[in-house]
């Protein structure tokens, strides 16, 4: 119950909207009712949405950027941005996917920005926390880390986060056809990198 959390939460403001939040049979509020309450000004509902979904944003950001510190920043900014712009959410029942889209685009921005500083085409070191280690799996992950930000993002989302091309398209605001062709090109790049690795 949101009301029970008041004493502990940093977002412990009172709101008439809180009492209007509907609960399911287990006493949990649906995202839909929380979004509606948050739009009416309930800070408790905002906090509950943040608690429910920030880990999803973090995982998406970590998968794409490959660094925990960057994922922390992206998750925090994405959650705050999503709740500030809640009126722009077209489907109030789909807060989670919307937050994931915001986190995806921010994570990609971070990855692009980082490429400003180093020429990653010739970067021998893994540029992602998940790219370290030994063996075939680690070689594959290093090859993924070496892809361009856009291609790396679609590979990570498709094969490691198990998203369908339509979901990737939504996250990146791309047509499904573009997503499929980007995946195909990324797989071609990967094959080349892995062949080079095997000959080295």
């Amino acid at each position, binding site marked *: 119950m949101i009301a029970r959390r008041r004493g502990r*939460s*940093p*977002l412990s*403001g009172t709101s008439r909207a809180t009492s209007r939040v509907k609960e399911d049979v287990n006493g949990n509020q649906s995202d839909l009712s929380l979004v509606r309450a948050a739009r009416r000004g309930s*800070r408790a509902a*905002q*906090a509950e949405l*943040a*608690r429910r979904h*920030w*880990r999803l944003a*973090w*995982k998406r950001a*970590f*998968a794409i*950027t490959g*660094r*925990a*510190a*960057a*994922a*922390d*920043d*992206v*998750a*925090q*900014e994405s*959650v*705050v941005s999503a*709740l*500030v712009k809640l009126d722009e959410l077209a489907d109030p029942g789909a807060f989670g996917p919307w937050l994931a889209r915001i986190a995806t685009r*921010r994570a990609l*921005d*971070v990855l692009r*920005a*980082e490429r*400003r*500083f*180093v*020429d*990653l*085409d*010739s*970067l*021998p*070191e893994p540029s992602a*926390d*998940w790219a370290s280690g030994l063996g*075939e*799996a680690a070689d*594959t*992950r290093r090859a*993924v880390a070496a892809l361009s930000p856009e291609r790396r993002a679609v*590979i990570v989302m498709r*094969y*490691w986060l198990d998203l369908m091309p339509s979901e990737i398209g939504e996250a990146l605001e791309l047509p499904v056809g573009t997503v499929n062709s980007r995946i195909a090109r990324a*797989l071609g790049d*990967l*094959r080349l990198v*892995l062949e080079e690795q095997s000959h080295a």
Partner: protein
Amino acid sequence: MPELEDRLGRARPMWPAPSDDLERQILLTLEEHATRARQAPRKTFGSRRRWRLGARALALGAVALAVVVAGALLNLTEGPASKVLPSDGSVVERAAAAIRPTGEIEHVRSIIDGTRYEYWSLSGVSSRTVTTDSSGRTTQYTAGPVCSVLAGPPRAGADCASTGEAIEEALTSGHAHVAGDATLDGRALKRIVFTANSPAASGVYEVDARTMAPVRLVVTLPGGKTRDETYQVFEYLPATAETKPLAGAPSAP
């Protein structure tokens, strides 16, 4: 490509769990945001008019103050160019001296392809970067120290050369020479052409003709890619308890 897709599936990383403390940080940030929004006063017609008059007065005052401060800065301190430079040295030598690090934290604000980048990089430790794209969207992140494209791929975070160090190295390598004058928004510049030792990058570096402060750097990388960067701020700060958090490092030693 089914084999490759299978291989990708086998390489799926084990995702780590984020810190629980992050949830508290997020909720605190939300709370701060809500408090700021609540404290913003409602504007009536009268208050808006008063605000406009006040804003005009403030703007006039700010312009006057900016003129005074800018004049003082031009005479006294212009970031890295504030040092006393050898008047008898060549342009390249003076430019190299002007970019030499004078503090542990490199603070740079620049524009690349319409995107504004601002970073504070603590040598060998960490950096914090804020980017603002052409639509005004801002992204902030922390990372290892900023490494220059001129220095080649870093072997480790602590070994990477900062932008200032890499430019200085390129200018003192013996392959840099003055290639004439230029202007940018009416500002007189000296154009220096150089070849970096590694990774065989070359570039054009433009500095203020009087102060030798960095103005623009165009780097051509192997493969023909170029990066065109215009500097608004390029300065060094001492690493203190106040400045280290700017670079994403803890204030305590």
